[in-house]
C-alpha cells in the first residue's frame, strides 16, 4: 500500500511520533522507578530499609518510662559457608539511650571470604526511628579462612517511635560479595 496523501499522511506521521515518544518515555520510566523507589523508601521508611549513613549522635531526651523490645535476627542468604548469629536475641531498651550489641560471624571455609550485611527493620515504619551510629553493616567484612569475630552495632531508638510499636526487629542478611575471596 502506497502512503496516503499529505493530509492523512501527516496525521499518521504525527501519531507515530507521539506514540514513539510515549514508548521511549515509558522505557525510561521503568528505569527511573529504581531511584524513585529507593528515594521513596528512604524518605518514608517503607520496606524497612534503614539509613545506610551514620546517624547523628547528639544527645536526645531519654524516655525512662517507656520500654521497647528490640529483637535481633541473623540469616545467611546463599549457601556460603558462614556462621552468623546475634549474641543476644532480644533486649529491652529505653528510647533515646544508646545500646551496643554484638553479632558473631565466622568463615567456616578454607578460603578467604568477603561479605556484606544488609539490615532490615520490621515493622517497616519503625526504620525511620532506628538510628545506628556504629554498625558492621556500614562496611564490607573480610574474613581469613576459619576466622571468626564479634561485630558491634550501636544504636538507639528515637523517642518519637509511634506509641503502638512495642517491638522492633532488626534483621541482618549476610551476603557473600562475588569475586572477592569468595
Amino acid at each position, binding site marked *: *500500500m*502506497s*502512503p*496516503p*496523501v*499529505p*493530509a*492523512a*499522511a501527516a*496525521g*499518521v506521521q504525527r*501519531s*507515530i511520533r507521539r*506514540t*514513539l515518544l*510515549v*514508548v*521511549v518515555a*515509558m*522505557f525510561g*520510566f*521503568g*528505569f527511573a*522507578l*529504581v531511584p524513585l*523507589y529507593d528515594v521513596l*523508601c528512604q524518605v*518514608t521508611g*517503607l*520496606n*524497612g*530499609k534503614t539509613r545506610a549513613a551514620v546517624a547523628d549522635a547528639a544527645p536526645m531526651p531519654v524516655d525512662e518510662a517507656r520500654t521497647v523490645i528490640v529483637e535481633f535476627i541473623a540469616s545467611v*542468604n546463599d549457601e556460603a559457608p558462614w556462621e552468623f548469629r546475634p549474641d543476644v536475641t532480644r533486649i529491652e531498651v529505653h528510647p533515646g539511650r544508646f545500646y551496643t550489641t554484638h553479632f558473631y560471624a565466622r568463615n567456616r571455609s578454607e578460603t578467604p571470604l568477603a561479605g*556484606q550485611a*544488609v539490615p532490615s527493620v*520490621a*515493622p*517497616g*515504619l519503625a526504620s525511620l526511628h532506628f538510628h545506628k551510629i556504629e554498625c558492621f553493616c556500614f562496611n564490607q567484612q573480610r574474613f581469613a579462612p576459619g576466622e571468626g569475630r564479634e561485630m558491634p552495632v550501636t544504636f538507639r531508638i528515637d523517642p518519637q517511635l509511634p506509641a503502638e510499636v512495642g517491638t522492633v526487629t532488626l534483621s541482618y*542478611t549476610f*551476603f*557473600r*560479595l*562475588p569475586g572477592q575471596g569468595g
Partner: protein
Amino acid sequence: MTATTAGHDAVHDGHDHGHEHAPPRGLWRWLSTTNHKDIGTMYLVLSLTMFFIGGAMALVIRAELFRPGLQLVEPMFFNQMTTMHALVMIFGAVMPAFVGLANWLIPMMVGAPDMALPRMNNWSFWIMPFAFALLLSTLFMDGGGPAGGWTLYPPLSLQTGAAFPFVILSIHMMGVSSVMGAINIIATILNLRAPGMTLMRMPLFVWTWLITAYLLIAVMPVLAGAVTMLLTDKYFGTSFFNAAGGGDPVMFQHIFWFFGHPEVYIMILPAFGIVSQIIPTFARKPLFGYASMVYATASIAFLSFIVWGHHMFTVGMPLAGELFFMYATMLIAVPTGVKVFNWISTMWRGSMTFETPMLFAIAFVVLFTIGGFSGLMLAIAPADFQYQDTYFVVAHFHYVLVPGAVFSIMAAAYYWLPKWTGHMYDEKLGRLHFWCSAIGVNILFFPQHFLGLAGMPRRIPDYALQFAEFNMISSIGAFIFGFSQLIFLWVVIKCVRGGEPAPAKPWEGAHGLEWTVPSPAPHHTFQTPPQITEAEAHS
C-alpha cells in the same frame, strides 16, 4: 472532512497492486503481504496454534494433578509447564488473537482501506513466530525452560539455566511486536476513519482497542525495562534486584506489576468490545449506554495504573499502602459493573436468539462476572493474606481469562467467520462446542476456588490428600474442556473449506460497516470511503 476524503482517494489511486487483482499465491503471499485481512488471518492462525500448544501444557499439569503423588512428570518439568503455559497463553494465544481481530475488523469498521502502516504490520506479525520458536526451544536446552513462574521474580528466575537469555530475548521480541501493532492501531483509528465516523460513532470494538493500544504502548516498554534489568543482574554484575549490592528483589515486583496489571486489562478490554458488538446483534436492540461504555472503558484503563500493589499485599507493605491499593482496586468494580449492567439492559426485552456467538457472549457476561467477584474477594487486603498464592487465585484469573477473554474470542470467531470465509459455520457443531466448553470450563475451574480456600498452594506438582477429590474433578473438567476445543478446530476448518454461502449480512440484527461489504470480504475494501451518518452509527 474534505481533507480525509482526498486522502482516501489518493490511497485508492496510488495503490500499486490494482484493485481487483488476486494476491500472489503460495508461501510468498503470506511472507510479503501487507494486506490487513491476510495479516489478521495469520495472527488468528498463530493464536489458535499457540492455544493448542499452551493447552497441551495445561493438560500435562492437570494430568499430573489428577491424583496426589508424583506419577507422570518430574517436578522441575512440571514447573516449566506452569511457566510456559502462562507465557504461551498470554503472549501467544490471547494477545495475538485480539491483534488478529483488530487487523481484520478495525479498518473495515472505520471504513479505511487498510491499516495506516501496512508494511510495519507485516513485520509486527512475522516477529511473532520467531519469538515463539525461541521461547519453545528453551524446553530442549540444558536445565530446561524457565520454571520460576511467568512473573519471573528474582532471585528465583535468575537461577534459570541456559534458557534465561533466550526467554528474555523472546519477551523483548513479543514486546516489540505488540508495541508496533499498537502504534499501527492508534495511527489507523485516529487518522483513517471514513468521513462522518466521529470518535463517538465508532463501534465499541474499535473504542476498546484504541484504549488497549494506549495501554500497550505505556506498559510493554516497562516490561522490557524490567526484563533487561534481570538480564544485566544475571550477566553484567548489576544489582537492581540483588540486596548484596544495594538492590531489592521486591522492587522487581513493583516494576513487573506496574506492567502486569494493565496487561490483564489489555487481555480483557477488547473482549468487552467484542461482547458489546455481539449482544446488540442477537438482542436486536442498540447497545444500551454507548457513551457510558466508552467512559467505563477509559476509567478501567486509568485505574489499571494505580492498583498494582494488590498483587503484592504480603510483601510487607505499610497499612496506608494496603488500604490505598485495596480501595483503588475495589473502585474498578464500579465501571465494570456499569458494563455488565449495560449488557444486561441491552438484552432486556430484546428479541433474543441464541446462535453460537450469542451463547458464548452470554456465557462471557455470567462467567466473567464470577471472575470479577472473586477478584473483589482478593482485593480485600486482610483476606488476601489467606488467598495469596493459593488455587483461589488460579481459579480467579482463569475465570476472567478463559470464560472471559477466550470465550469472547470464540464468540468473535463464530460471529465473523461468515464474513471472513464467505460460508456459514456448522451451527449444530458450534452449539455442541459451546456446551462442552461451558460445562467443561466450570468443572475445571470452579472446584479450584474450594481448593484455594482450603489452602492448596499454586504451582506444586503434588498435594496433600485432602485435596484429592476436587483435583480429580478439576482434571476431568480440563480434559473435557481441552478436547472439546478440537470441535472448534473442526468447525473452523469445515467453514473455511465450504458450507452454506453467507450473505453480506448473515445476522439479522447486525449493524456496522463490515456487514456492508460482500462475504467473503474482498481483498480490498473501502477503497472509496463510505459516508457515515448518526442514524447508521447508533441504530
